[in-house]
């Protein structure tokens, strides 16, 4: 008797009261609808522009014969690193061509390039501002920290909200996701220019702009190039996920594979390798460029 009473009471506690049930979903949806409708002109224009750029870039890249890519990647790997690197990277391009994923890889590649360029245009000035002005740093730092802790999928939501399904949303979420390392490493590069070197620039009468352009940025180039490298790597990982907002590319193949269960393992591996190879090729080449900017002595004190 007592037990049933108690359990009845307990159940009433477990039950979430009706007055707490709020329809957040509808509220947010209403806000998004309002937002999208209000700023449709702006975001519509952005969406169309990005879509056109990406579409055209893809057309151009697909117009280039596959073996030209093999040769270019081989030469770049050879000149920037060494002959072995050139050969290995060239073979990776051959693999991609032979895996009948050429078009998928190119769409992925286009989004990566586009995002990295936008990241560079945004990230470089932000990193510089952050290194020059305390308040900018105070605002940006927590935002960057937050951005690196958010789950990747979260980035898809605002992109979806603003741009709807398609390649522009994929490009936007990729850009936002990949931006932090470039800002951070630009900031790091500029703030770690040796004090004496900066003083020398000042002591000879440089204007602040001359100091930035002729001393600080060149001294920070290695760090900035590393930032571009990391940004590119993050972009590649994000493009795969961006399949969820209706964008094709290699990600589509991988999701397709996942959806088909065990029968998809082969397909998954093939596309997975293509993605990894794309990442390795870009990583090696950008690192090769970054090393060109390394003027430290390497080992010697």
């Amino acid at each position, binding site marked *: 008797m007592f037990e049933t009473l108690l359990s009845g009471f307990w159940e009433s506690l477990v039950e979430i009261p009706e007055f707490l049930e709020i329809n957040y979903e509808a509220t947010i949806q209403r806000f998004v609808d309002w937002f999208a409708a209000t700023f449709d002109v702006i975001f519509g224009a952005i969406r169309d522009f990005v879509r056109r750029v990406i579409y055209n870039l893809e057309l151009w890249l697909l117009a280039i014969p596959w073996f030209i890519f093999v040769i270019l990647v081989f030469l770049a790997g050879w000149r920037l690193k060494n002959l072995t690197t050139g050969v290995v990277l060239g073979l990776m391009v051959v693999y991609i061509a032979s895996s009948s994923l050429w078009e998928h890889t190119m769409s992925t590649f286009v989004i990566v390039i586009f995002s990295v360029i936008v990241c560079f245009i945004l990230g470089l000035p932000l990193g510089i501002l952050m290194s020059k002005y305390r308040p900018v740093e105070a605002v940006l730092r927590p935002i960057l920290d937050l951005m690196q802790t958010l789950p990747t999928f979260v980035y898809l939501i605002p992109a979806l909200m603003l741009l709807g399904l398609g390649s522009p949303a994929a490009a936007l979420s990729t850009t936002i996701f990949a931006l932090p390392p470039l800002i951070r490493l630009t900031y790091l590069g500029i703030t770690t220019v*040796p004090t*004496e*070197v900066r*003083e*020398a*620039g*000042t*002591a*000879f*009468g*440089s*204007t602040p702009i*001359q100091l930035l352009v*002729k*001393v600080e940025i*060149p*001294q920070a*180039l290695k760090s900035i190039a590393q930032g571009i490298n990391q940004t590119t790597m993050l972009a590649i990982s994000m493009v795969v996920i961006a399949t969820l907002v209706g964008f094709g590319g290699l990600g589509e193949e991988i999701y397709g594979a996942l959806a088909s269960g065990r029968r998809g393992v082969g397909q998954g591996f093939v596309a997975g390798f293509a993605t990894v190879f794309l990442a390795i090729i870009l990583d090696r080449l950008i690192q090769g460029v970054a090393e060109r*900017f390394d*003027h*430290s*002595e390497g080992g010697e004190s």
Partner: protein
Amino acid sequence: MAKPVTIQNSSVVFGNHAQKKAAIELLDGELSPQEIRERTGATVAVRNVNLDIKEGELFVIVGLSGSGKSSLIRTLNLLNRPATGKTFVGDRNLLEMSKKELRRYRRNDVSMVFQNFALLTHRTVIRNVQYPLEIQGVSKKEYTERAEEAIRMVGLEGWEHYMPSQLSGGMRQRVGLARALTNDPEVLLMDEPYSALDPLIRREMQNELIKLEDEMDRTIIFITHDMNEAFRLGDRIALMKDAEMVQIGKPDEFFDNPASDYVRNFIADVDKTRILKVRSIMNKPAYIAKQGDRVKDTLEAVKKRELSFTYVTDENRKFLGYVTLDQLKRSRGKTIDRLINEDETVIYRNAFLREAWPKLKEAEYALPVVDGKGRLRGVLDYDVVVDALAD
């Protein structure tokens, strides 16, 4: 043209605004810099320093690390802004300059050599050296020429297109020096330029600086913590301790009248004959006759000063020889030109006493002192040297 540098009652204080303000109040009091820091949180790096550096002088500021010498030299191009006092280069007070004037001053009138070279590691040697001119909008042709000349001056021809990372420490500092010479500054600041170098290379660089300084017409302010280096180089030396000046004077004055036990200890290990230079103990000739002077005038001047002879130079102060009182008295000519006794025995002003001593001992009286271009710079008296060497 070289310019004199005058520092009046200059103090450098580091800290935030409130801390600095509190510390400045205490500068004239009795508290030590450490006590001031404990009380206010501000660091007093330089305290009420007065210096009168003459034009063309090689002035050395010496002290242990933390004594404030680097903070002081940085006030001369305003890398540090003094909290009090005035800083004159020529007749201009640096502290009253606008941003634009300051930039012009830094571009044209002053330059600096840094302890760790501070080279732009992303630029080749010549592009480092041209930097001070490049930022002024000088034409490419001109800055390339002037950079090449500066590179020649420091003996780095052939290395123009190397990167700094490919050079040894000594060569890097030559680049630093060349860069500081391209804008042909009136005042050259050298902040412990040789402290990061090996002893052998340091010695070599010091000798080269002495030679270079002799050919140049500029005021050099040199910072070091090494007393031997200070005495080797300095026309005059200022010793700093705990943000204040302990003693300022010519090298021999430090030996003759050390201001305190601290000074005495500081110079204890210094070998006088190795570091005392002719220029630091030479005297100014009482009178110098010029080629073409009239006998009558010269005789009068020599008599008036109770001399037995006078040195003769040409228009450019180049040493020619001497004329004795007897010659002047007996002469019937109009000018002194035919009376000049050519004298080969001269002493180079940057020679160390050890090197000059044998010549002087043989001559047994005064010898003329000349610079690298043969210009008469002074006279070295036998007695003065004996006095200087006797402890």
